[in-house]
């Protein structure tokens, strides 16, 4: 009876499609007629869709666990030897399953949003349900008719093709779900934005809901991106964490515009400005999320991540994107005047508002940079038939100055006040930070750093850190003076009283740690390709490496050549064991890098091919400060966590009264 489950799941997904249609229709009807009956229908439909898609996903997981190779997707992505953990998570190991997983998350989110905002956002809710329903329909059509994970194989093969070895790593297991949580998470603020445009009430409540959902989705997307970088660094074995691969870019673009939104929405909440702009940003973010999903899952990109090519799917995806873009921006253009700012004006050129404006400018240009570099090669190939590539040099050339500009704004933005500032005030505020910010690059110069960007970067990092540290110091000092408590509890109270603000400041500190890592690993890394025979010795930086011997090892579903490399630096001795693995069922060898990581640097050794005469190729990297990136990500997560725990600040109202 093993084969039944997948059919149950298939049927559940088909039913979900019908109910998603109902959800859309009832939502629109409820919104137009303002009749609660239809709204309740839409709500029940949304909840049922979530339940049905849960069943559909579980059925696929069960098929994996039961090794039901009559399911084509299972046969393609699992084998009898695959460990249980990877069996269960192979659900998102290929594109059909990951789209099903995507749509499942979307249904869960729309159910949660319905439940959370049922009483608080009665005006937005029908449109919210309608829009989420429409997105569900679009994705379900894709999942059911163009890339079905429910497809069967008869006769069923005795064993499957196994999961791609590169995906058999815990880092890779958690990378896609977080990315999807981010992508899908942006659909809720998007739906809120569209709902606000359609019903035309520019109350503050949907802004709050929009901001919190965006923050959540942004946090998930950030985590997903960092997991991806981590996975690339530890598994792909090329010594780096970010290659400006189109797929990485696809996840980076919505991140950039969402970051811009998280900043500029503060101006809207505080001053009522930038309203239309914020809607534009959130729509763009969602559109880029869709683009990201489609780029990766349609095989239009020839990157390491690219999946199957299927023209039907491509056409559907293009049409879907076109509908979403035309609808969203059409509504934005037609309705934006309903949300006109209430004559808020800029009072001064030097103020937080304008800092945010430039922040947005930088982020949008950054997103544009990535978009151009990612889509231009595609466009050229489709339209002109010429294959071009813009590699990492382009992105680095544009991104480093943009990043430095953002850093400077990060420090300045925190210091200058809202509304009224002046050049003189700013200078007075910044004066104490200038000596350390100038001293640091000088020290670095004597320490051997020569790259101008590196020197500027170091100065800016010190500057931003100082501004943020003083921000904490001042807050803590006031609290201690007022309440006479210890340092730590003053800090705790300070953060707890304004979690959103200090969550943001902590997130900035996390970014700062990451930037230190980027500067270190980007500008100061060393890399060496060489041949070693057993007994050979080589030096890299302060390390002396000895290739002692080569030995065979084997585990569950792979066997490998393992090199024993002794690394010595002063008193420290470490044995590194890089491997060249051969997974069963795959003809491709895979290098497993051996890494010795400290706060100061990573020693990263990759074993290459046999080159004859008993020698082996080795690639050795010395990557300074890489760990700071992962620590920075941790600090960022902490900051976002703090910011997210802040509850609603607006009083609950039964009937939101619009301003428009």
């Amino acid at each position: 009876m093993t084969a039944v489950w997948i059919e149950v799941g298939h049927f559940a997904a088909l039913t979900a499609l019908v109910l998603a249609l109902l959800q859309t229709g009832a939502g629109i009807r409820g919104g137009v007629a303002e009749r609660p009956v239809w709204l309740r229908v839409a709500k029940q439909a949304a909840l049922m869709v979530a339940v049905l898609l849960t069943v559909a996903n579980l059925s696929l997981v069960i098929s994996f666990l039961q090794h039901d190779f009559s399911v084509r997707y299972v046969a393609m992505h699992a084998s009898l030897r695959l460990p249980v953990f990877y069996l269960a998570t192979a659900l998102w190991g290929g594109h059909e399953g990951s789209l099903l997983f995507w749509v499942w998350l979307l249904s869960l989110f729309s159910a949660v949003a319905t439940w959370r905002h049922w009483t608080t956002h009665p005006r937005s809710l029908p449109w919210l349900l309608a829009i989420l329903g429409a997105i569900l329909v679009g994705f379900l059509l894709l999942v059911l008719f163009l890339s079905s994970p429910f497809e069967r194989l008869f006769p069923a093969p005795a064993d499957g093709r196994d999961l791609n070895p590169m995906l058999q790593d815990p880092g890779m297991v958690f990378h896609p779900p977080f990315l999807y949580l981010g992508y899908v998470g942006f659909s809720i603020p998007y739906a809120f934005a569209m709902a606000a445009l359609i019903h035309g009430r520019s109350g503050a409540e949907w802004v709050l809901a929009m901001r919190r959902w965006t923050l959540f989705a942004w946090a998930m997307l950030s985590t997903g991106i960092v997991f991806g970088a981590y996975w690339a660094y530890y598994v792909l074995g090329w010594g780096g964490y970010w290659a400006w691969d189109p797929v990485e870019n696809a996840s980076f673009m919505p991140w950039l515009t969402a970051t811009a939104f998280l900043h500029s929405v503060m101006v809207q909440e505080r001053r009522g400005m930038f309203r239309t702009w914020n809607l534009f940003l959130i729509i763009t973010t969602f559109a880029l999320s869709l683009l990201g999903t489609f780029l990766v899952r349609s095989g239009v990109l020839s990157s390491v991540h690219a999946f199957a090519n299927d023209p039907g799917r491509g056409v559907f995806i293009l049409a879907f994107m076109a509908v979403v873009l035309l609808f969203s921006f059409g509504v934005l253009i037609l309705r934006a005047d309903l949300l006109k700012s209430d004559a808020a004006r800029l009072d001064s050129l030097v103020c937080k508002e304008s800092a945010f404006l430039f922040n947005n400018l930088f982020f949008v240009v950054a997103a544009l940079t990535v978009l151009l570099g990612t889509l231009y090669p595609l466009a050229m190939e489709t339209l002109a038939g010429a294959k071009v590539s813009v590699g990492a040099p382009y992105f680095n050339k544009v991104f480093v100055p943009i990043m430095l500009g953002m850093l400077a704004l990060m420090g300045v933005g925190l210091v200058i006040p809202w509304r009224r500032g002046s050049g003189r005030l700013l200078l007075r505020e910044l004066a104490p930070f200038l000596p350390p910010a100038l001293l640091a690059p000088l020290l670095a110069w004597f320490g051997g750093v020569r790259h101008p960007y590196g020197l500027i970067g170091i100065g800016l990092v010190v500057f931003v850190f100082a501004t943020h540290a003083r921000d904490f110091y001042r807050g803590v000092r006031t609290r201690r003076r007022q309440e006479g408590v210890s340092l730590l509890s003053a800090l705790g109270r300070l953060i707890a009283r304004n979690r959103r603000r200090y969550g943001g400041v902590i997130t900035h500190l996390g970014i700062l740690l990451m930037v230190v890592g980027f500067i270190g690993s980007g500008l100061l890394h060393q890399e060496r390709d060489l041949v070693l025979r057993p007994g050979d010795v080589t030096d890299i930086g302060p390390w002396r490496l000895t290739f002692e011997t080569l030995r065979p090892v084997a585990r569950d579903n792979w066997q490998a050549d393992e090199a024993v490399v002794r690394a010595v630096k002063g008193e420290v001795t470490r044995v590194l064991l890089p491997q060249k693995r051969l997974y069963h069922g795959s003809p491709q060898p895979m290098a497993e890098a051996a890494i010795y990581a400290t706060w100061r640097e990573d020693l990263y050794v990759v074993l290459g091919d046999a080159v004859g005469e008993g020698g082996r190729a080795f690639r050795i990297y010395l990557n300074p400060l890489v760990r700071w990136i992962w620590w920075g990500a941790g600090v960022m997560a902490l900051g976002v966590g703090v910011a997210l725990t802040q509850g609603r600040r607006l009083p609950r109202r039964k009937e939101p009264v619009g301003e428009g």
Partner: protein
Amino acid sequence: MVEIDKRVLLSVTAVVVGGALLTLLYTSFTDSLVYFHTPTEIWEKSTDFKGRKVRIGGMVQAGSLVRKAGTLEVNFTLTDGKGEVMTHYTGVLPDLFREGQGAVVEGVWRGGSPYFDATTVLAKHSEDYVPVSMSQEGLERARRSILKSVQ
């Protein structure tokens, strides 16, 4: 001091900064474009590309991979079924690099003789990270698309 409209001043600053960023974007972009060719194409336009960075993609001809024993130096022939480029590379080859599979090499084109010196070698991936085998059909298609672009 003369009161200048702050909005105007701000807009001007924003436009200047934005313009500078876009200029940076544009110049970096045009500088870093690398064209991708098949071996046949690169020979046809050999003089045009002399001194420029190019990418050449094709299949690693079976039996052409030769390693200078005990070193990282390799030579191999990249083919699209019609033209071929003899490539020289020093370094660790990617895991997915194999004879009879697709590969992309990058380097500065100096006329291609006797060898094209590649600075980077990428193995070409297709669905699920398996290297592309250049099937007869694929070769046919590549040849047709080349013909089309020449016409």
